[in-house]
């Protein structure tokens, strides 16, 4: 019997002989990869300016221990796709008073570049809830006291100028 892999109908990756290759499977070779096309031709400065970032909370003032619901929105203002390079596969982050994801403990995300892609005029909206607690160790969290707190979010890049936003909330007793 003629077997399918003898027919050369299925190409396999040379590195991983038992994993079917995904090259060419995801999109037909006749289709233009507009993401890559735009990435190649749009200058880096314009790419950064194309994306607006906003952080909003459901209220400005919260009672103690009341959950803070925040919305982070990324918007591509241009009528063509934009792809941003990021420093980590965790393509965007949020923080409270500089503590990433309200934690003093770093989360094990590998330090390797990735990309954050937007279709033309695309808006991406993400939601988080901050329980008014800061993670102080692997197993412990501590409630914060009354005061003003800065909630910020942005694309994971060292040179993320213009790709971040912040807002301030007040927690009252």
């Amino acid at each position, binding site marked *: *019997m003629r077997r*399918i892999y003898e027919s050369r109908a299925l190409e396999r990756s040379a590195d*991983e*002989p*038992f994993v079917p290759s995904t090259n060419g499977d995801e999109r037909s070779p006749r289709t233009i990869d507009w993401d890559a096309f735009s990435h190649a031709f749009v200058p880096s400065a314009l790419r950064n300016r194309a994306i607006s970032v906003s952080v909003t909370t459901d209220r400005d003032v919260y009672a103690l221990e009341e959950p803070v619901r925040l919305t982070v929105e990324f918007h591509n203002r241009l009528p063509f796709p934009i792809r941003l390079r990021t420093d980590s*596969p*965790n*393509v*965007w982050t949020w923080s409270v008073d500089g503590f990433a*994801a309200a934690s003093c403990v770093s*989360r*094990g*995300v*590998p330090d390797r570049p*990735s990309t*954050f892609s937007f279709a033309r005029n695309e808006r*991406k909206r*993400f939601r*988080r*809830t901050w*329980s008014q*607690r800061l*993670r102080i160790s*692997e*197993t*412990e*969290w*501590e*409630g914060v006291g009354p005061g003003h707190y800065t909630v910020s979010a942005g694309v994971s890049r060292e040179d993320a100028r213009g790709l971040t936003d912040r807002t301030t909330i007040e927690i009252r007793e």
Partner: protein
Amino acid sequence: MALLEVDDLTVQFYTEDGVVRAVDGFSYEIERGETFAIVGESGAGKSVASLSLLRLIERPGEIVDGEIRFRGRDVLGFSQDELRQFRGNDAAIAFQNPEAMLDPVYTVGEQIVETMRAHDIATGEAARDRAISLLERVDIADPESAYTDYPHELSGGMAQRAVIATALSCDPDLLILDEPTTGLDVTIQAQLLETLTDLAETFDTAIQLVTHDLGVVADCCDRALVMYAGRAVERAPVEELFYDPSHPYTAGLLASIPRIGDGRDRLPAVPGSPPDLVQVPTGCRFHPRCPYAEDVCATRDPKLVELETGNPVPDGRRPDHASACHEHTGNLEGGLDYEVRIVDDRGNDSTDSSGQDGAVSDGLDGAESDGQTDDETAPDDPETGGDHGERSR
């Protein structure tokens, strides 16, 4: 040395919404010939943990931490050749959806033979004979005819058996079964479970059974691990897990098993839904759904501790019964206020304060010998107790 040792396994997926930590610091071990269950709701990370054993996690997921040792060898350090030998020869997996696992353009027999040929187990007539005997072994009626059938000609139960026969074709020491009874009617489920138990005994194959069906666990497993939001919350021999659940989530799962003859209008359920793994709750991950949660549960993450000593489970040691609840570290003031009621078919009723002393009431022995036991977990909490009301088997 156990056949399989998993230490501190951490698997995460990178999505635009954030990092999904599907398995977080997961440890367990399986002995040769043992049937071990991983139980939990959908999305708890059971399947991801199982796929990780064979390094079948694909992008955007990756194993970021931990060790997997098979007969003492580091699976995560295997080369591609070693991995190919390991998959199939040492450990094999049967996935949840058998119709999707079988190639529709080849006969069932050809697919079993292909596996044997790829692993140099047998070729030609010998492979054919072995394939037919495997189909017979998994209780497929008329195996010679099934050998030449295409997958679409098989029923769901037969397809599941054919997949198990394929997995067994290279005589693996460990068989991973991901929800093998999902989608099968109860009669076929019972037959399949009987077949699995029989196979484990005959071939001395260890089985890792991934399921959300506690009835299946009760039927054929030696030990079980309950998983919640990527973490192990309780590990115990199956009888202890059923008669003395030490974690409120386990008690909730047991309470939510439907029971014939139960007069209640609503099926009890664990209140709420599993958390989003992008942002898990602070402290104990189960605390937003737990009727016994106190302030400490929201600010401190309980470790898996041995029930007898209250000490964290040391690396490389298999605990008899361990649970990740503040009740067992002495931090929960109110305690776990549910009780286990064991009612045998003669109507004898006995009660055990669960999670407190670990003792199982006297009625258990008689009930066990009958093999027909109804036991109930009834929390006293008036607000959420209804949802955590009862368990039965």
